[in-house]
């Protein structure tokens, strides 16, 4: 657990440092996420790193299994925007609903269409 959380935090730190030098173009945790996936993949065959890999996987699973609670503190921030919700709440809800439906439809259609088109070429 401790090894796992340390690895995640170190990758976040590396991500934040990179983000600083990139002028905040990409958020630090996103860079950390990409780096942790690449580094784990590249070091996948190294047996002496196996315990660290396992702990990182276990810690990540525990965090991702409880992902929902992490949205609560930020979501409660809605109480700072009660006036915007009172005045423009309907417009906000309409934007969220419409763009959610459109995005779901486009994503699922492109996925299925391209899968069918690419299916004939037999890549693994």
């Amino acid at each position: 657990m401790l090894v796992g959380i340390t690895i995640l935090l170190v990758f976040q730190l590396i991500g934040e440092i990179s983000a600083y030098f990139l002028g905040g173009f990409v958020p630090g945790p996103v860079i950390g996420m990409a780096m942790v996936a690449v580094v784990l993949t590249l070091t996948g065959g190294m047996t002496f790193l196996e315990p660290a890999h396992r702990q990182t996987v276990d810690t990540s699973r525990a965090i991702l299994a409880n992902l929902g609670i992490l949205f609560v503190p930020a979501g409660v921030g809605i109480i700072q925007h009660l006036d915007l919700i009172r005045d423009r709440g309907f417009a906000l809800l309409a934007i969220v609903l419409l763009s959610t439906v459109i995005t779901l439809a486009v994503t699922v259609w492109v996925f299925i269409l391209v899968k069918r088109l690419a299916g004939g070429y037999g890549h693994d």
Partner: protein
Amino acid sequence: MTDGLWVYLATSPLLWLAGTLVVWLAANGIAGLSPGNPLLNPIMLSIAVIAIVLLVAGIDYGTYFEGAQFIHFLMGPATVALGIPLYEKLSLVKSNLVPLLAALFMGSLTAVGSTVFLSHLFGFTPAVVASLAPKSTTAAVAMAISSGLKGDPALTAAVVVLTGICGAIIVTPMMNAMRIRDYSARGFAVGLTSHGIGTARAYSVDPVAGLISGIAMGLNAVLTSLIVHLFL
């Protein structure tokens, strides 16, 4: 005497940290009574209960956040942790690479593009548009993108949660109505659109849908942070 205790506790981080955890566990318990019902979303329930308590008790958000920040901080490592399903399920990514990348690219453009277009249409200020634009990505990433674009991260957080809950509620009836039975496609769409909340929903429907949803959420976080600059 009890008034004194309340004043003492209400301003300490411990009360709001412990309170958030207790409310979350209770909300999860209530949601667990009817697992198939997306309206009983534990995130929505928890936010509603805590918001009402704060408003009734006259506690400002800053005081609440003093305690809740310890939970909020884990958003960062949780975002890094999204890299793990990518690494673990590399074969799932590889075997679906072409449809996955195509859907990622088009979905991400649609998510940001439709939001920016609609919010201009409704006449919102540039600061609000910037706050809404990254709403399909997970909260930590969306808030970072929003503050980078001079938006309001608190508004972003609320809209991100709303987008997550909307997608989680809509996805199953919508995909059934569209007669889409490919669970990797369904999972990918809900993860891209509704980040962690959609992924939690996908896991409760189908394990493969959940995995690929987590992958979509991670990839969309990366792509959205790049493509918002095309729109704003």
